[in-house]
């Protein structure tokens, strides 16, 4: 299932920061990981992913560095900054409140989201 663009827009920074807090990732890896962990719901195109990463970087929420891979090619890894982690904590709190509110409205389906967030 693909989400509406506007709905996705507010969620993606939170999702990206959430994944990067687990470990630093490069762009392609991030796309795959997000798609896999969201069961294909948060499937990003590259034309969305890189502007999003550059935006987070411009805001000082993530930082990047180039590292060599096993095949000799370089990959650009992203990881959250301290500011990014603080933002993530704040947004997660808000998101949890939102999910709980939605749970009251739409039922147990929202609980799945909450479980995913807490992973």
């Amino acid at each position, binding site marked *: 299932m693909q989400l509406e663009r506007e709905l996705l827009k507010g969620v993606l920074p939170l999702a990206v920061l959430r994944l990067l807090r687990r470990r630093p990732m*490069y762009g392609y890896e991030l796309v795959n990981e997000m798609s896999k962990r969201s069961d294909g719901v948060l499937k990003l195109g*590259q*034309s969305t992913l890189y502007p999003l990463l*550059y935006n987070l*970087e411009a805001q000082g929420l993530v930082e990047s560095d180039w590292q060599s891979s096993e*095949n000799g*090619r*370089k990959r650009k890894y992203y990881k959250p900054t301290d500011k990014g982690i603080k933002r993530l904590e704040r947004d997660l709190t808000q998101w949890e409140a939102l999910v709980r509110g939605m749970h009251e409205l739409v039922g147990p389906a929202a609980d799945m989201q909450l479980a995913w967030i807490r992973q």
Partner: protein
Amino acid sequence: MTVKAQQPFEVNDQSELPDPLQAIVERVVRSARLWPSERRDVRAELESHFFEGMRDMLEDGVALDESIEILHDSFGDPATAAKLIGRSKRKGRPMIWKVTIGILLTLTASTVLAGGLAAYLFMGEPTPTVDYIEQINAQVEQTPEESRAWPILHDALLAFRSRPRSEGNSIPYPGDANWRDAVAWVLSNQNIMPLLEEASTKETYGFIYDNRVSLEFIRQRAILNGEDNAAMDEVPDPLMPPTLSLLLPNLSEMREMARMLIVDSRMHMQNDDFGHAFHSLDIALRLGTLLMSGETIIDQLVGRAIIEMSLGEMLDTVDAYQNSLTEDDLDVIAASHLMTMAPDVIRPRFEGEQLMFRDVVQYVFTDDGKGNGRPIPSQFAKVCSIMGVKGDGDIEFLAKAAVHADRRETLDQYAWLWDRMAELRNLPLYDSRRATTVEVLDAFNKNPEKRGRFALIANVLPDLSRADRMIRETAMTQRAAVVVLDILEFKAKHGELPARLGMLEQKPDATDAYSGLNLRYTVLDDGEFTLYSIGENLIDDGGNAEATDQADEVEVSDQADEVSTADDIVYWPR
């Protein structure tokens, strides 16, 4: 999509990206408007992205061609990606760059704004189609030339020597310091007296409004009086409404000639010659009434001022002679213009103002040929400036033009106001229905929104109500002067004053313009009498022109709120 890729393919630091994917990278990098370092970074990252994708899929057993196609199709729109990437990267640029760009954008915006403002100021050009001066002159030309006074007055004025500048506007009396100079001035102008007398007998004023002729007139007057006339060579502005640029040099000169006639009268009085003294004043009065037939409100207001001046002097002259008037003197009075003029000579008639407003409109608005159009800001500012409208200069006038109503709406509003004023002019000052119309007009004049939307009307339309009242008051002065002279004639014939105005044989019109009743007439114990109007405040102060307002003690008419606290207007005693 047709893909030609090398086989076998290995992802390592020497690998080259297949053409379709490299084309995407290049297109994004080229379109994103990035700095070189940013381009390098984005190119490397996108290439890395595609290599990782290919490697991943190859490991999963996807054929190379298929993996390229999948990556190609899943990338999305390169143009959108370029736009978003460019925007995101620019956000991350150093503050100094952002400040510089901000300044440049501000400068650009200011330039565009200034350009737009300049275009706004000067866009549109008036396309006048009607010669309103010609229409005004057509009214004048309805009277045959031999019945017009101006051709004779024109000749008289070209021979009329001005007073020395130092004398100001006051008219000296015998014994005053500048009396001798005034006498010399009158004597130097004796040659034009017959012309003034002849002109004063004509039916209408008959001034033709023509700036070319007026300029020549001014030039010749300047030569006669040895004055500088350099300013008269100015080229007229072709975009200025001609009715607003009308030269009326005749008016100040007419007033000067009336003053000269008053000095002439005083000279005759000095020689104990009542007949000639009164006659000179009667000529001045005639000149004033001639101006009442002029087509502009300025003509009429100057005419009214000359009439008031002449009537006041006439009453002063009669006052000096009231106990020694001879039969001959009474004959002179009876034959005078004062006593014989038609009752409606001094009356408000402002029709020419409508033509002038239409002329202004055709120079301030555009015209689509169907009566529609928008205000032209630069023209609006020009008219405001010429009209002497107070404001903070052109910018304020231009701002007013920006919110002004369009051409048709402005003319409709003017017509509406004009009709209300016509209602006022058709009602005597004492008619209670005037209050309703005054209220309606006040509602327009005191409404800031209306005054803003119709600023042209608010600024160009003269206070016709006030002018109307002033002229009606002057007509009352004329009636009062006639009544005074009839009373004095009665006294000369019967040896006593009439007990009431109804005893006067001539049955003069003694209507008080403000009350609609007769002027107040009282015979005093000492054999004198008083004649006065109770004035605009409708309060009888007993003939006291400087009485304090005692509104609490006297009955106040229901029109009191319409008028000021003006006191009685006393015509007699002097």
